[in-house]
């Protein structure tokens, strides 16, 4: 590792103008509902305020958990940190190699064989040719697909697809690891193995940012928690303290019931 990893978010806001919907009827809706979340920007477009005035500073060793109800802005914040959504207001500074586990099937193609998918992922990540055999070996070993590795993913069972997706996503070791909640799905036997691999990756990363509705996982892996609500930071501090407040504030958290 060359330099120390760093994430610095200053006064960051992200607005989504609603481009492809019918904004005229939406405008009516806004007037009627007068919800704080929809608003208009200078050009009189209807916008969703996904994130408002976020400030975060993370250095090597930090493990941040993101909590909040559905639509609080957790995934959006991870996308901003990954450099996918560029700030609409404020600034973002990220130093260090980064791997964002946002979509379990990123770039995976059902018509390709497992092996071809592995090579394609290597290309997506801009790995040099020399790194590809190692990647292939690692993913093949973990996903345990044996002969299926040379068959199209189209004919895999659902569990096999999950295993391949997971093995691919976790095959590349970053300094900064961003994880959305999807990786917590899967069957029990695989979960145990997956958890071990994830923990190893989490331990290896300098900075972890994890979004989850499973508070126990957040408590276990994170030292600091950011509580988002309606795109705003409601609390930011030591994991136990914020989580206690968070669970206390919403006794029947709908999302917890879903998980």
């Amino acid at each position, binding site marked *: 590792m060359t330099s120390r990893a760093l994430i610095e978010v200053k006064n960051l806001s992200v607005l989504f103008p609603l481009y492809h919907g019918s904004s005229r009827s939406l405008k009516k809706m806004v007037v009627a509902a007068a919800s704080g979340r929809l608003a208009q920007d200078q050009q009189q477009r209807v916008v969703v305020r996904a994130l408002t005035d976020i400030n975060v500073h993370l250095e090597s060793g930090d493990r941040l958990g993101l909590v909040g109800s559905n639509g609080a802005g957790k995934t959006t914040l991870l996308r901003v940190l990954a450099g996918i959504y560029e700030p609409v207001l404020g600034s973002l500074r990220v130093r260090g190699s980064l791997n964002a586990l*946002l979509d379990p099937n990123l770039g995976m193609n059902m018509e390709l064989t497992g092996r071809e998918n592995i090579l394609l992922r290597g290309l997506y990540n801009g790995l040099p040719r020399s790194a590809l055999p190692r990647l292939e070996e690692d993913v093949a070993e973990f996903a345990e697909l044996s002969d299926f590795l040379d068959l199209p993913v189209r004919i895999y069972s659902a569990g096999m697809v999950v295993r391949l997706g997971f093995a691919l996503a976790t095959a590349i070791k970053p300094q900064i690891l961003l994880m959305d909640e999807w990786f917590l799905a899967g069957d029990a036997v695989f979960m145990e193995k997956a958890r071990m691999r994830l923990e190893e990756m989490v331990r290896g990363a300098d900075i972890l940012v994890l979004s989850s509705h499973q508070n126990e996982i957040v408590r276990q892996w994170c030292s600091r928690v950011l509580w988002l609500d309606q795109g705003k930071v409601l609390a930011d501090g030591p994991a136990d303290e914020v989580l206690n407040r968070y669970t206390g504030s919403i006794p029947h958290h709908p999302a917890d019931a879903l998980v």
Partner: protein
Amino acid sequence: MSSAVTTIAPPKELHLRADMTIATRNRWAMADLADGMHLWRLAWALGWLDIRLRYRGSMLGPFWLTISTGVMVAALGVLYSTLFKIELKEYLPFLALSQVLWGFLAALVSEACGVFTDAEGVIRSVRMPFFVFSMRGLIRNAIVLGHNIVVIVVVFAIFRMWPHPGSLMALPGLLLWAIDALALTLLLGGFCARFRDIQPIVNSIMQIAFFMTPVIWKPNQLSASGIANLAFNPFYDLLEIVRGPILGSDIAVTTWIGACVYSVALCAISWAFFVRARGRIAFWV
């Protein structure tokens, strides 16, 4: 532990602000191009993948296109050579070449609209240079062109037209096409992601351009004033700089100048757009 993760992600540094100056935005756009070119192997793999998926399960694969182009050229050739009263020997090689080249241009322009929206899933889950998707569009269409070249070769062989050194002058033209194609995919790809009703408009423009441009008819069938008006058709100049040298006909200097002027204009517009729009494309797709 056997699941040791050893592949390390390449290091990165990112500093983005909402209020970036045009100079900074310009630097980011240049970085997008440079990083994209660095990922040329990905663009190549994706381009081939598109072709494979389009023809999956079919025995002849992309050669179906060669066959359909061949049949179309043969049918149109016989029909129009009688309509236009041109000898088949003179007309068919012209038509085969024009039809294949135009097919490439038309498909490229039409598919340029979807280069970013088609890659929505990837764009939303990883930061990736947009130029990769532009290159992918170009590569995909170049592969189709490569298959269709068979039609040209067969027709030229039938009429005993052998390659001559002057044909090599088509290469600078093809290079200009590649540059224009990349500029156009960046421009239309972004623009169509933002405004979804552009695609049908582009398709109708290409339809009209097909009839207005000497693709199936020859420029010398026009009156003098008609030929003069061709100078205002960018497709004519661009088509002619590749078609002319292969057919062995002289191309006027003005044709080359026209092609260059139109290309520079396209690149300038495309760049001005991309510099401003790059950071917003992820919101649009």
